[in-house]
Structure formats: C-alpha cells, structure tokens
C-alpha cells in the first residue's frame, strides 16, 4: 500500500500529439480514485503511464515516495485489471493467479496459501482447476480481480473492468469492488466512462478532458459544484441543461439576470431542479413547448423546447404529470440551484 504522487505528468506521442498533459495529482494511501471522461480524453493513457505500460515523456511519477518513471511494470508493485481481463487462456485459474507470484520467486507454499485465500475471498475457489474458457463473464472478471489481489500490491489499477459485463452483473460487481477496496484499503486507480461507476465508487473523482484534468473532487462536490462547463455537462444523467444568455435574458428574467455573478453568459440547470410552480425566491423562468413526455419507471423526463429559439431542455417530473405534448408551459429554476458559467473561459463565475 502506498501513496501515489503525480507531478506534471505528460505524454507526447511522435508528431507532437499530446495525449495527456500537465497532470498533477496526489493520491493518498488507501484512496479510491476514479478517472472519468469521454473516450479519447487520455484517462486510459494516464492509467497505463502509472502502470508502466506507456513511457512517461514529461513529469514525475512516484509510488510510495519512490520515483518510478523508469521502472518496468513489475517493479512498480502495482497490479492491473484489464478491460478484457487478459487471462492466460492456457492456464487454469489457479495458475493464472499463481503466475505473478511464481515470477516473483515466492515459495510453493506461500503461493498456494495466497491463491487459496484470494480465491475464497472472491468465491472462485470451486473453479481453480478450470481454464478461463470454461467460466462465465462474471467469473472471469473475478479471476482477473483475483490475479490483481493475490499479489497484495501497493496499488490497483483498473481499466474499465466492468465494461464487458451485462448490466445486472455490472451493478453487482461494482458493489463488490467497492466493498473489497474498503476492506483491503489498497490505493486504487479506476478508469471508467460510466458516470454511475464513477459517482458510486470513487472517494475522489478526476474528470479528464482532452488530456487535461478538468476537476478533482469528491463525487458529490463534482456533481453539486462543477468547476467547468465541461464537467457540468459531463457529470449527471440526464445531463445538465445549458442555456445561453441569448435565450434566458429576456424581459421576464430582467431582475434575476442582474443578480447573476459578473461575467455569466451561460447557465446550467440540472433537470431535477426545474419546477412547474413559480418559486418565491429569485428565479429564472422559461417559456417552452412540450415535445415529449417519457415515463421511465422511477423517474420520468419531460423534453421541452425553450422559446423562442427552440433549444432542447430536459426536466425531471413525476410520473403522473399531466402535460399535453405540443402545449406551451412555463417552468422555473431558482437562482440558488443554477450553475453560472462564462462560455469563453468555460469556468464557473461564482
């Protein structure tokens, strides 16, 4: 177990392509960090740089107070879980787990003890003699986890480990990974593009975009106070409504607009903070046309077009909401729940 310190880390590919740049991150011992971002944002590259599978072209990486830039993956004392598991197909589950230990020169007895313990913990002990081919997707996933756990490394690196599972199994494994990490208290770095995984798993979230860190913070901080327009749009489902001044700064909202922080020309409104009834506190009101009502069980969504320029706008509503598709309604968002941004800088203005 160890802390990980990332200072000015960058990856430049030949041709001056900057996949990752200027990453600074202090990961405490035992912390669970989730790297999240859209495809191509550099999250996997960053993880692979920590793992030692990609060379580091800029900056410094330390694991447990030791600079590891030049070390091979095996020398960094990390374990990695791959998206497609990368189990050795010709080895039994037992050998898959034991291989890393064997290469490190553990005694047969130590290996056996560790493999048995890990297998028991992950409930894969009945399959130790099977080959990966004879396992289901979920079981393979566990074996992949086991191969990382058995080594008791300083840090776990997980690269979208759940993306090959079906929805139900994914939820189940997500919970298990969380519990496991809590119990073992091993520093973990987890890459995902799935918001739900990001929000539920991480002690802290690192939102990446175009190779840079957009925001670092606890999932709830990031959700409730996105620092940039990108984070605001990326985190949350359905995603935040982004409305430009040209749409909201009309005569209905004259008073409220004056109260917005200086430099605000875009506002973000979470679909669940929009209401039908005019609030007593200062608020923005939106004139809109109902496009579609979409009941989805636990929550229902109302898709609106803001007038006059027909910008799409989503609102979370009760299942029994009586609205006529095609009708015109007014909806309101209190100033206190708005996220004011400046479009040019992309940053929050309050």
């Amino acid at each position, binding site marked *: 177990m160890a802390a990980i310190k990332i200072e000015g880390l960058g990856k430049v590919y030949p041709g001056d392509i900057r996949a990752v740049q200027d990453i600074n991150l202090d990961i405490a011992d035992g912390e669970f960090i989730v790297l999240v971002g859209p495809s191509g944002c550099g999250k996997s590259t960053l993880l692979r740089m920590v*793992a030692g599978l990609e060379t580091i072209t800029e900056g410094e990486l330390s694991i447990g107070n030791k600079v590891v830039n030049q070390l091979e993956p095996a020398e960094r004392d990390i374990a990695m879980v791959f998206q497609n598991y*990368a189990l050795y*197909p010709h080895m039994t589950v037992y050998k898959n787990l034991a291989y890393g230990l064997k290469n490190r020169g553990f005694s047969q007895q130590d290996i056996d003890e560790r493999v048995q313990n890990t297998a028991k913990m992950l409930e894969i002990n009945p399959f130790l003699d099977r080959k990966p081919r004879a396992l289901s997707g979920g079981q393979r996933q566990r074996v992949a986890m086991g191969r990382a756990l058995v080594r008791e490394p300083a840090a776990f690196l997980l690269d979208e480990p759940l993306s090959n599972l079906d929805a139900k199994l994914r939820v189940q494994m997500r919970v298990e990974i969380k519990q496991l990490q809590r119990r073992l208290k091993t520093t973990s770095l987890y890459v995902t593009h799935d918001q739900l995984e990001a929000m539920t798993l991480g002690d802290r979230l690192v939102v990446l975009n175009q190779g840079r860190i957009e925001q670092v913070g606890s999932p709830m901080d990031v959700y409730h106070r996105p620092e940039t327009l990108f984070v605001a749009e990326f985190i949350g489902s359905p995603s935040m409504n982004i409305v430009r001044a040209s749409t909201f700064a009309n005569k209905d909202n004259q008073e409220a607009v004056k109260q917005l922080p200086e430099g605000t020309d875009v506002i973000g409104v979470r679909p669940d903070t929009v209401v039908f009834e005019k609030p007593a506190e200062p608020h923005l009101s939106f004139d809109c046309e109902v496009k579609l009502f979409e009941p989805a069980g636990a929550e229902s969504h109302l898709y609106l077009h803001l007038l006059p320029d027909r910008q799409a706008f989503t609102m979370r509503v009760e299942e029994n909401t009586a609205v006529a598709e095609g009708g015109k309604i007014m909806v309101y968002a209190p100033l206190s729940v708005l996220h004011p941004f400046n479009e040019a800088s992309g940053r929050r203005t309050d």
Partner: protein
Amino acid sequence: MVENNRWGNILAHTLLILGVALVVFPIYVAIIASTHTGGTFMRGTIPLLPGTEAINNYRTALLQGRSSAGTPPISLMLWNSFVMAMAITIGKLAISLLSAFAIVYFRFPFRIFFFWVIFVTLMLPVEVRIVPTFQVVADLGMLNSFAGLSIPLIASATATFLFRQFFMTVPEEMLEAARVDGAGPFKFFKDILMPLSITNIAALFVIMFIYGWNQYLWPLLITTDPKYYTIVMGIQRMLTGGDSEPLWHLVMATVVMAALPPILVILFMQRLFVKGLTETEK
C-alpha cells in the same frame, strides 16, 4: 444441401471410388510386390495377391540393403532420414518462432525491412539456390555430415510468416498482463506465447517433417559416403546401383518403409493437433 438424386449419387460415388482406386492401386502394388521373391516381379505379370516372402524381404532390406551395390541397409538410411527430418523440423520451428517473436514484439531498426527480406526468401526454394548453397556447404567442410544435410534447409520464411500472423492475433493485453506479472520477454515467450501457439507448432511440425523427410535432391548432392545416405535418395541408389537388374522386391519393401514414418508422424501429431484445436482459445 444438395438435392437427393439417386443417379447423381451413384455417379458421384463411382467417380470417387475410381479416384481412390487410382491413388491406392500403386501403393497396393508396392506392398504386394514387397512380399514376393525378386523373380516373380521380373516375369512380366504383376502379381496382385500377397506372396510368402514378406518377412524375408523386409529383413533383407532392413539389415543388408543392396550391399553389393554399395547401399547401406535400410535401417541406417531410415535412421539418417529421421535424424535429418527431425533436425530440419526442430531447427525450422525454433528459428521461425524466435524470428517471428522478434519481428512482432520488438522494435528494432529496419524491423519491417528484415521482415520483407525474410518474406522474399519464400520465393527462393532450395532448388533455385542449390549451386551457391552447395558451394558454401562444401567450403565449410560440411559435405557428408548431418549438419550439411539439415542446416541449409532450416531457414524457413513460411513458418516465420505463419507464426508472425498468429502472434499478431494474440491480444496486446496478454503481453501487458505478463509484464505486470513480472514476466520478461523470454518468460513471456516460454510461458504464454509458446503454449498458445501449440496448435500451429503441431501443424507446422507435420508439414516440416514431411518436407524434411522427402528431401531428395539435396541429400543426393552432398552425400557421397553411404553412411549418410537418406532413404528417399537411397531408393534411387538401389535402383541404379550395380550391374544387375533392379531387385524390385527389395526396392518395394524399402518404399513401403520409407512411407511409414511420415504417416506415423501425422497420426501421432493429429491427436495433439485436434486436442489443440478443441482446447485452446485466445
């Protein structure tokens, strides 16, 4: 699949049976001929029923050969052929596995260039380069030796190419997982790549063994000492050697025995082969 047509079926089967007969008949004749005395064969009519001399003929062929004409006993030639074929097969597999490994997994200068150089040699079979190769082997003093018989035939672009194609289908993550697990290049090769390629190795083993076993021109050129005669060229020596009529019964016994080892290799490797096919999965 195909509609059921009685006459079509009969026609198809007749053709197939004819085809089989065409292929099998010479082999049958060879086996029958090897069970008669030499004289029976010379009388002009080819016997179609087994004779009584089988044991005698095979014993003579195995232990004496046509010693009067300077050919060694078949047993020695069989052994020579086996050694040469095994050396070629194992050498080819080892070299092509290693070179494919280098080409796929290492970044060295002129990597692509070297790959193409190897690939181009595919177009140069032994027969094309036989004169210069002979010169080189002669200058190195490898005439009349097992090294001379096998080494010039070991380099194999085909096998290198096949292994390269296979290695490229092995997921990148496998290598990365092995690196994280502390396996260096050689361990990765030995513990992961080789077991994964076992099917390909088995298939190539069969092909290469038969290739090595059937070498005719090369052994004929570089061996003058009967001690190094191989069976395939030995048959030819048996036919032409000496002044007397060819001893057909012995020649046929030799032919039958020469055909056996490749068949055995196929039978033996096929089991491994099928096992590999059903058990391996990437």
